[in-house]
């Protein structure tokens, strides 16, 4: 029994030590974002600032256009939710309908999962360019709107819904769209919620594609704005850390609220 206790103690110690190491960048970021300019060159470096200030955060909005970047990021987030709905619709059709070409279409969709982003990046840019959508919000949003993985997860989950349920609704005279929105969506709420959070995180963090498509600063997202800040204000650590914290903290808050669902979501999706 004593051996067991020591073993557990060692395990917990290792866990805490590793956890602290994982947290170091976050603590360093948060502490530094409140440092006044003269504290950055202090040796030894301070973890908790001696004279904390909000100045770095307010400069993001007065000297930089972070409000515009925030607005653009939120537009992308909202559009990605429309994409999520399209994924759900497609997943539903693959799970609950029989129609000619069903398997062919499904394999086509699955095949897109295996194509690396670097291969499609340049041709997709050429297509967007041909459509005249370079430097528009549509050009930023459209290519990533739907995803094979999302469709696949919805299909897996929706396949478990009894078909009798839909038959009953049809007999009551409900239309197909009404069945989807009023009957199916409420049933798949758990998996929808998980996907919604992951979609939110993905859209909030979107970086490379907006960077490629947006030439105009009015279309920059938070990530693009932050990378701009890194280039132009490379020595102003306070501003950089505040910008990073402004991007990371909302995600951490949302994640802590919903982490139980996200982590369970992976288990539901059959990762075992």
């Amino acid at each position, binding site marked *: 029994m004593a051996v067991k206790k020591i073993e557990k103690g060692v395990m917990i110690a290792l866990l805490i030590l590793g956890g602290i190491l994982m947290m*170091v960048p976050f603590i360093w970021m948060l502490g530094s974002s409140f440092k006044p300019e003269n504290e950055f060159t202090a040796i030894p470096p301070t973890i908790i600032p001696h004279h904390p200030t909000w100045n770095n955060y307010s400069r993001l909005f007065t000297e930089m256009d972070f409000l515009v970047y925030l607005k653009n990021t939120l537009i992308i987030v909202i559009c990605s939710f429309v994409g999520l709905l399209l994924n759900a619709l497609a997943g539903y059709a693959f799970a609950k309908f029989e129609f000619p070409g069903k398997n062919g279409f499904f394999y086509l969709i699955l095949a897109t999962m295996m194509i690396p982003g*670097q291969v499609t990046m340049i041709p997709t840019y*050429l297509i967007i360019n041909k459509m005249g959508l370079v430097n528009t919000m549509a050009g930023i949003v459209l290519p990533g709107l739907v995803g094979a993985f999302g469709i696949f997860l919805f299909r897996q989950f929706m396949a478990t819904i009894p078909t009798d349920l839909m038959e009953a609704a049809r007999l009551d005279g409900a239309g197909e769209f009404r069945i989807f929105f009023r009957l199916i969506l409420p049933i798949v709420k758990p998996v929808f919620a998980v996907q919604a959070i992951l979609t939110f995180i993905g859209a909030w963090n979107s970086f*490379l594609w907006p960077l490629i498509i947006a030439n105009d600063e009015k279309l920059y997202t938070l990530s693009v704005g932050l990378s701009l800040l890194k280039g132009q204000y490379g020595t102003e650590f306070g501003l950089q850390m505040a910008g990073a914290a402004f991007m990371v903290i909302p995600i951490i808050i949302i994640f802590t609220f919903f982490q139980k669902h996200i982590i369970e979501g992976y288990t539901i999706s059959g990762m075992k």
Partner: protein
Amino acid sequence: MREFAKQWNKNKYPYMFIAPAVLLLVVFSIIPIIIALVISFTNMDLIGLADYSNIRGVGLDNYINIFKDPVFLKSLFNTFIYVIVGVPLVVICAMAVALLLNYGTSWLFKTFRVIYYMPSITNIVAVAVVWGYLYNGSYGLFNYMLSWFGIPAQQWLQDPTLAKFSLILLALWKAIGLNMIIFLAALQGIPRSYYEAAEIDGATGWKKLRYITIPLLSFATFFVTITTLIGWIQFFEEPFVMTKGGPLNATMSLALFIYNNGFKLSNFGYAASGSFVLFVIIILATIVQFAVRKKEVEY
């Protein structure tokens, strides 16, 4: 005709439901593959983009030239280093963390599960900004921590050899969370009775780990290895935002090479041929993985 109308009426809803998704995926995933293949045999660049009549077929020239390009060869070598160092590190660390987290069920373990997962969801640019400051030669925290042990300050991102490993460390920090969740899900699927049976036979903690846990994790390990491998072959964001491939192309990866040629230099044809080399490497690596696994099962 009547038959067709009847068919359509019957199937109109599923087609309507899948149409937006299929259309978007065809336009932005399937067609691009064909375009990429076609332009990889041309000299398409900015002039060609403005006027398609300037595009000329060059046969295999792009593919021949790319293997004579010292920057490409360098990026190929770097990607190889990223893969052979990065993949085992991610798999071992993620598995170790999952085993630790699976040891207990108290609030402590649940809290740390969140902490270890957190880096996975954070934004790469924000992370790069923060780590850039951690790695700073004069004011960074890492050099200060080294000074506690009397180790001299390091040029984390300026030294060509060290820079590669600095990026690997950052990517490892970011990758542990997601993979640890996959291992954790697999660990929770192992029936308790296996351990109970082993205990009756007198198996100790280490033996249980060696002969029950690790073999039963083999599918999760396989899954994590494959996804991590593909991820490291496409290693891009960390060098892109931290070092831009420098110093002296020491951190240049294949994906970054493709990006630079495509979007910095506008050599679309050349970049497309690079992307197909990358694609082939990914396919080969995946086939090898599956072949190795098949052999394992037969034993």
